[in-house]
Each structure stands twice: as structure tokens, then as C-alpha cells.
């Protein structure tokens, strides 16, 4: 039943079929979506009516491809921007948190750590409404007492960034502190002993050690942000992110242009995955 233990033939075949079905289940929706992005039909379904790139490049009365659809392009751009800000901020604050929780001793550390993990069990919708609520209250308060209108406290780009940042940071804390816990503290001591300052130690020893974890959590943070829907839904203003835009289009009746967008996303993330795989292989060989 494991690599070293023989099993009966029926068991093996049955198991393999199950696994194969699982992967079919996993990839069917993705593959179908990709294939239909190239179907020369006005609806994202079969039968196959021939190959076309219309859903990417066309711009006539009937069909507008992804690259000609300014709304889609702008929401894509906004998602990129959101993803960038969120992952940079989460990476910085999350790494700081990991250092605090792993390497420092201070009062209320346990309670603070508990709080830092809490977003894992707070549904995204709740995070969205609670941040919406308190930013609106804060905005109203400032407006009433000081007569200043702070636009970013209303549903807006910055609120989306803050909302996503609030739970993605938890993820960074977890990944970086897991790596930091495995860090051999004597490396830092050795560096100190050889005359390095505290700052040198972090710059030359600890950060290089954490680098793979930092790169990994940056990528995953970006993807979490890019694909986020549940929290964003409540915080989004006029700058819609891609998932919100796609959502409203799906509700209004879908055209294969959505398949084209999905294809780009699937293709892009596959490239990222391959890149990641190669990077790790190179790292391991070193």
C-alpha cells in the first residue's frame, strides 16, 4: 500500500483510477474554460465552430476582445495594482510580526499572536463588513467634527487594499515564522562572534536565509489579493477589481470574452508555477 509494500492488482488499479478521476475533476473546469476561449461562437459552449482569436483581439460591433475592452483592461490593471500594494505591505508587516513572535519575548505576546492568527477563522465577508462599518464611522466622525472629508474611508481602492492586507498579513506571519523557527540561532551567534552588528546579522544572515520564504509568500499574497472576492465585494468603490468586474459580467450573461480572461489568468499563473518550480529546482541543486 506504500511504495515498499506490495498490494493486490485490483487495489492498485482501483486506487489509480480514483486518483485519475480526481485530477479530471480538478482540471475539467479549467481546461474547458481555456478551450472555449478559442471557439468561434458567441456563447461559451460547444459545438466547436472553428478556431478564432476574436475573444482576444476583435473590436467590431459584435465582438470585443479582452485587449480591446478598456473596462476589462482597467479592472485588470487595478487588480495588479491592488495585488502589488497588498503583497508589499503584507510582506513587510508580516515579516516584522514573525520576527516579534519567534525571536522576541514581551508581555502579552501570546495574546497578540492569537490576534494575529484570528483572521484565519474570520470569514472574509465579516472582515469586509466590519472594516466597511468602522471606516464609515471614522469617516463620519472626522467629517462631523473637523469638517474634513477623507475619501479613502469610503469604499475605494485604498479600503480594498487595507481589507485584503488585514488577512493576507496573517498568512505571511505564518509562513515566515515557520521558516524562522527552523533557523539555527547559532548562525546569528557565530556572526556576532565574528564581529557583526545586530543590523549586519539581519542583513547578511537572517534575510538571505528567509529569502525563499519571502519570495514564496510574496507570490502567494499577490495571488490571494488578485483573486479575492468575498472581502473586496464590500469595500470596492468605483475602481472595480477584476473578480468584481467578472462577477457582474457573469451575472449579466456570459460571453467567451470571460473565457479569454480566464485563459490569460490560467496561463499566467501556470507560467508563474513553472517559474517557481524551476527556481526551486535550481535552488535545490546548488
Amino acid at each position: 500500500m506504500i511504495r515498499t509494500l506490495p498490494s493486490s492488482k485490483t487495489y492498485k488499479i482501483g486506487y489509480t483510477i480514483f486518483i485519475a478521476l480526481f485530477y479530471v475533476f480538478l482540471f475539467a473546469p479549467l481546461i474547458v474554460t481555456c478551450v472555449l476561449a478559442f471557439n468561434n461562437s458567441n456563447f461559451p459552449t460547444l459545438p466547436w465552430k472553428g478556431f478564432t482569436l476574436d475573444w482576444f483581439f476583435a473590436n467590431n460591433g459584435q465582438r470585443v476582445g479582452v485587449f480591446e475592452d478598456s473596462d476589462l483592461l482597467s479592472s485588470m490593471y487595478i487588480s495588479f495594482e491592488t495585488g502589488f500594494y497588498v503583497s508589499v505591505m503584507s510582506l513587510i508587516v508580516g515579516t516584522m510580526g514573525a520576527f516579534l513572535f519567534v525571536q522576541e519575548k514581551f508581555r502579552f505576546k501570546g495574546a497578540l499572536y492569537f490576534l494575529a492568527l484570528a483572521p484565519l477563522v474570520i470569514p472574509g465577508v465579516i472582515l469586509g463588513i466590519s472594516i466597511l462599518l468602522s471606516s464609515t464611522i471614522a469617516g463620519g466622525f472626522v467629517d462631523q467634527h473637523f469638517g474634513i472629508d477623507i475619501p479613502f474611508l469610503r469604499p475605494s481602492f485604498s479600503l480594498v487594499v487595507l481589507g485584503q492586507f488585514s488577512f493576507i498579513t496573517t498568512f505571511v506571519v505564518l509562513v515566515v515564522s515557520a521558516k524562522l523557527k527552523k533557523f539555527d540561532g547559532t548562525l546569528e551567534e557565530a556572526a556576532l562572534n565574528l564581529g557583526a552588528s545586530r543590523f549586519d546579522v539581519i542583513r547578511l544572515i537572517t534575510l538571505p536565509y528567509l529569502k525563499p520564504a519571502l519570495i514564496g509568500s510574496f507570490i502567494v499574497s499577490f495571488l490571494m489579493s488578485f483573486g479575492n472576492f468575498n472581502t473586496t465585494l464590500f469595500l470596492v468603490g468605483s475602481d472595480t477589481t477584476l473578480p468584481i468586474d467578472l462577477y457582474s459580467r457573469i451575472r449579466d450573461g456570459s460571453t467567451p470574452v470571460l473565457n479569454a480572461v480566464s485563459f490569460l489568468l490560467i496561463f499566467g499563473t501556470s507560467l508563474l508555477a513553472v517559474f517557481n518550480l524551476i527556481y526551486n529546482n535550481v535552488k535545490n541543486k546548488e
Partner: protein
Amino acid sequence: MSKIKWGFYIFLIPVLLWLFLLIVFPHIDLFVNSFRSQNNLGDSIWSLANYKAFFSDSVYWYTFVRTAVYSILVTFLTFIVTFPVAFYITKVVSVKFSGFLALLLLMPFWVGELVSVYGWMILLRESGIINFFLLKMGIIDTPLKMLYNDISMIIGLVYMSMLFMIVPIMSSLEGMDDSLIEAASDLGASKFTIIRKIVIPHAAPGIVSGSIVVFMLVLGDYLTPDLLGGKNALWFTEQIYNEFIASFNWNEGAAFGFLLLALSTSIIWLALKITNQSFEKAVS
């Protein structure tokens, strides 16, 4: 070793800002506002009206319980589907392929929930791909209504949750020494006994943490129930959305949000108590 104190505060302050401004205060606001409502004159007053509304309207009640029960069901189904896969990847398939198979698992997460849901819609709807092939092969004459019901919703929820279950299970199985299974088998245990007595207990921490994350994600999901569940698939997050965005009744929405939060924390707390795990351990 002498510690530079200000260095510590440079690290501490952003973390405190994050946790208090974005987690603690918003939830306090949520809690406080769930006890406010407007009286006849339109003034804001303290009241239990929001919670009364919840308990007096059976639709709310029904949706709430239904959401909880379905979330548990989806968590369980996700475990059933993914456990054999996790075992296969970590213990059965040759090491050469295990990395690749594990990487493939990440795809649905990487492309995002929306794209996967869209893919399922294309597959399942009346004019969808599955119906197309079934009609073509002559198995059915009229298209089946597979979308917009509980089954399609559950499929979508299981699909988007699988990764979060399988990764912790795989990591706890990876830490398990193969010789334990070899020893058990050598001592005459059947496959079923080995799975039940050796493998599952060993994977328990991973199963618990996977279940917590999956349960929470499913319970708090809006997108999948909304798009795959159709009109009558009432999900509690949809009620919250309606209160907030459609009816603009934020106080009642806050109360609903708070109830959902209470539900998720109490079920997770209960699960941790039953399985004897600690929260910090389970999630890291």
C-alpha cells in the same frame, strides 16, 4: 546581549496598527452596531431589535442552520475526497512524480475562485458541456438541470476547498515514517486497520487544521453559493450582503455578521475541544 529598545518598537508598532485598526476596532464596531437601531424618530438608540428580527423570521433561522450544516457537510466531503489523494502523493506514487502532482493541486487556488466557478458553470449549465456530450451520445433527450441547485453548489464549494484540506494533511503525512506502516503490515494488520489505527491518528493535526480552514472558508463564502447555488440556495452570507448592500440596514447586517462569526468560532472551538488540539498549533 544588550537589546536596542527602539528597534523592538519599530517592529511592534506596525503590527499593533494592523491588528488593532483592522481587526480589533472593526469588530468592536461590528459588535456595538449590532445593538443599535433607529427608533420612530429616526434617532439611533440601543436595542435588541436586530437580534429579535433574526430570531423571529424563520427564513433567517433556516438559512443560518442550513449554512452551518452544509458547511460541515462540505468540510467532511472535502476530507473524504482529498485524503486518499494526499496519501497517494506522499506515500504511494514514486517520488519523481509526487512534486509535480502536488504542484497541480495548487492550480485552482492560483487561478482564483471566480475562474473555477465560471468553469463549473460552463460545464454544468443546461447549454453546458456535460449536457452537450450526454445529448450527443444519446444518453438523454432533454438537457438536465444540473446548475443552480444544492449539488452544484456543493461541488463548487468542495472544489475550491480541496487545496486547503490537502496541504496540511500532506505535510503531516510527510512527517510520518514509512517504517510505521511497514511494521504494522509486518505484524499482520490489514490495510483498513493501518489506515484507521496508524495513518489517520498520525495525520490528525493536519486533518484538524485543514478542516478548520475549510469550514471557515465555506461558511464565509459568498461567491460560490451565489453563482452556483442559484436563487433558492440560501446562504447566510447572502443575507448579510442583502442587509448591507440591498436594504442598507447596516445595524441588522452587523448583527447577522456577528452571529456568523459567533457560529464559526463556536464550531471551531468545539472541534478543537473534541479533538484535543490548540488553536495556535492547529493553524501553524
